[in-house]
C-alpha cells in the first residue's frame, strides 16, 4: 500500500514482531492461554533466538511497509542458548541508534525482553506498541516507493 492509499483508507498500523522460540514466543503463547487481549495488528515471526534476527530483516520490514518492529527475546542471562540475546542486545542497540540517526522515531523499533512466563507483559507490550505507533502515524521514511 502506498502512503497515499493509506491516507485514504482507515489506517491501522502494521507491526512485525520477531520472537525467540524459547521465551517471547512462549510468552505470546501464554498470553493466548491466559486470554490476555491485545490489538490484532502484530504479526509474529518465530525465530530460534533473538540473536538470529539480522538488522537486515528489520530494515526489510520497514521497507515493505511495516509501521513498527518489535524484537523480543529472553531476559539477559536467561537465553536458552546462553549468550544469543547478548548479541541481539548489542546489535540492536547499535542498529537502533543508526535508525534514529536516519530519522526513524525510536518508538517504531523496540527491543523487549519477555520470558515464557510473562504472558501479561507480552500483551501489554503489544498494546503499548500499537498505541505508540498509532500516535506516530504511518511509516513514511523507509517505505519503498511503489
Amino acid at each position, binding site marked *: 500500500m502506498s502512503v497515499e492509499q493509506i491516507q485514504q483508507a482507515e489506517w491501522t498500523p*502494521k507491526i*512485525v514482531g520477531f520472537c525467540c*522460540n*524459547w*521465551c517471547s*514466543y*512462549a510468552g*505470546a*503463547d501464554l*498470553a*493466548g*492461554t491466559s*486470554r*490476555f*487481549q*491485545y*490489538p*490484532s495488528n502484530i*504479526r*509474529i*515471526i*518465530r*525465530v*530460534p*533466538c533473538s*540473536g*538470529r*534476527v*539480522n*538488522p*537486515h*530483516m528489520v530494515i*526489510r*520490514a520497514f521497507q*515493505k*511497509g*511495516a509501521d513498527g518492529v518489535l524484537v523480543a527475546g*529472553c531476559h539477559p*542471562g*536467561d537465553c*536458552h*542458548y*546462553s*549468550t*544469543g540475546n547478548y*548479541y*541481539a542486545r548489542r*546489535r540492536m542497540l547499535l542498529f537502533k541508534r543508526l535508525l534514529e540517526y536516519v530519522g526513524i522515531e525510536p518508538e517504531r523499533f523496540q527491543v523487549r525482553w519477555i*520470558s*515464557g*512466563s510473562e504472558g501479561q507483559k507480552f*500483551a501489554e507490550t503489544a498494546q503499548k506498541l500499537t498505541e505508540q505507533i498509532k500516535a506516530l502515524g504511518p511509516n513514511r521514511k523507509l517505505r519503498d516507493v511503489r
Partner: protein
Amino acid sequence: MKRVGVFVCHCGSNIASVVDVKRVAEAANKMQGVAFATDYQYMCSEPGQDVIIKAIKEHRLERVVVAACSPRLHEPTFRKTIEKAGLNPYFVEMANLREHCSWVHSKDKEGATLKAIDLVRKAVSKVNKTFPLFPGEIPVEKRCLIIGGGIAGIQAAIDVADQGYEVVILEREATIGGKMAILDKTFPTMDCSACICTPKMVDAAQHPNVKLYTWSELESVGGYVGNFEVTIRKKARYVDLGKCTGCGICETKCPKKVPSEFDFGLGQRPCIYKPFPQAVPNKPVIDAKNCRKLLENKCGVCAKVCPTNAINYEDKDELVTEKFGAIIMATGYELYDWTKDFGEYGYGKYPDVIMGLQFERLVNASGPTMGKIKRPSDGKVPKNIVIVKCVGSRSTEKGKSYCSKFCCMYTAKHATQILEKIPDANVYIFYMDVRTPGKMYDEFYMRTKEGYGAIYLKGQVSKIYQEGESLVVKGEDILAGKPIQVKADMVILATAAASVYDAPEVAQKVGFSYDKDGFFTEAHPKLRPVETNTAGVYLAGCCQGPKDIPETVSQATAAAAKVGSLFSKDKMATNPMISEVNEKLCSGCGLCIPVCPYKAIELKTITERVHGGQVQRQVASVNAGLCQGCGPCTVACRSGAINLKGFTNQQILAEVDTACL
C-alpha cells in the same frame, strides 16, 4: 512455486468461534502456490490427520501449512503426519491461529480473521522456501547425572540404576538424604521418616550402578543431550574416604563444638562431624571454617586418634570432568527466611519462635532433645503452643505469592505429635485456609481437629512479642469476628517452601529456564511435567515447585523413566535445523567462531581449483553434533555465508515480506 496445501483447524470452537475459518480457507485457496485448502474440526485428531494425508496424495501436495495452534504444541505431530504421506517431515509450517490470534483477539472477530489470513499467507511463503532436512545421528552416553541427593535424587538414582544404567549422584552436603532425613514422621501414616528414608539411602549407595559424589558442587556443564560434559568440584573433605572406616572416634574427641546445621542450631556438633548418625556415606568431614588445626595450626586431635590415618589436613578441592547422557535436577527446596521480612514476629530474636523444620528436630528421637519437646530458651516443656500457617506463603506483599502445599498437612502432623507427647497441651493453629487434598489427608486433618482437639482459628497473626517467660500472640478469629490473644510458651511458624538460594545460578549453568520464584520450569505444565525445555534435562521433586514426599517420589520415578527411554537407543536423532556454511561465499574471516556458544564452528582448509591451479584456503565449518541451531553466527557473517537450516534468511525474509503486505 511448490504445490502447497493449507489446512485450517477449528480447534473445536477455540479458533472457529472467533476466526471465520471458512473464509480463511477460501482466502488461502486464492493465494499464490496454494493448490488445496480446507478446514476441519480437529486437525490434530486421527481423522484430521487423515484429511491431510489424503489431500497430499490426491492433490500431489509438496508442502503443507497447518493453521491451528502453537507450533510449540503440535509441530512434531504434523511432521509425523506428513512423513506418513511420504513428504519430508520438515515440509510443514504452522500458522498459529489459536494462541496468537483467536484467544487474544476474541472481541475483534473481523480483525482476527484478517490476521488469520495474513498468518496463513506468511506460513505459505515460508514453507515455499523450505528445503528437505534430514536429522543426523549421535551416540548417547548412557550415564545419568543426578544433581541433588534428597529423596527425589535417591529415588531417581535407584530407578535409573535398576534399568541397568550408570548413575552419579551429586550432593553438596556431606551426606545424601536431604530434607527427608531431617523429618521425624511423615503424614498421614505417621511412619518414622528415618525408617523409610535411611534404607533407601543405603540402597542407593550400595547399588552397583550408583556412584556418590557427596560434599561436591556443580562447576560447569557443557555439551548437549546424550553428550553432556560436566565438571564437578569435589570439595576438600580432609578425610580420606578410602581409609576412613567411619568409627567415629574423631567426632567424640574433637574439642570444639559449634551449632549443628542439621539441627538448625538447636544442637551442637564437633568440627569433624557426620551431619547425623545414619549419614551415607557414614564418614565424617572437617568443617574448615571452624577447625582449629586448619585455622590456627593447633589441636590436630582427630589425626592423632584416627586408627587408620585417614585425616589429611592438606586436602584440596578437586575438579573432575565426566560425560553424561542425561541430567536429572533434584535440588529440592529450602525454607523461606522469615527473619528478614517478619518484624511483627520478632525477626527471629525470640528463641521460642521456631520454624517447622526446627520443630522436626525437637520432636525427633535422634534430635538434640532426644525427642522430648522442650522449648529452646529454657528447656521447659511447653503447655500452650501456637502454630502460625502461611508465613510468607500466599502473600503478594512479602514472601511468596504461591501456596507451599505441604504446610497444612505438616502443621496437622505437628499438632498431633505435640498432643501425643504432651497430652495436657493446648495447640492453637492460626490458618488462612486448610487445604488437604490427597489420599487420607483430609481424614488426618479431621482427626487432628476432632480426635486430638487441636484448636483451629481462622485468621492471621498480627504480632508476636515476649512478655515475661511467655510469648503473646495477637491475631484474629474471623469466624468469631473478634481479635484474639493467646499466651504461648512456644510458637511454630509454617514458613513458605522456597527455591534453593542459588537455584537460578544452577539452572543457568545447566542451561534451562526457571520461574520468577526460582523454581525450575517444566516443558509443559500438563503434558511434559518432568522434562525441561532443554533436551536431556529432567526435573524431580521440589526444585520444580513445592510438593510432598509421595509426589516427589512419583516425579523422580517418572524422570527416571524418561531417562530410560532416552538411553534405550544407542544413537539418537539430532535436530537438523542447524547452521550450514556456503563455502563459495565464506571468506574464512572467522568472525562466526567467537559468537558460537557451543564452540561448534572452526576453520578448515579446503582445496579449490582456480584458473587451472590448485588453491588452498580456509573456510568455516560447522560441527553438526555441537550446533544447536540458535543462529547468532548467521548475523555475524559479513558475506552471508552461514545460514540456519529451517530458519534461513530467505524464509524469514519471505515471512517479513508477506507480513507487511
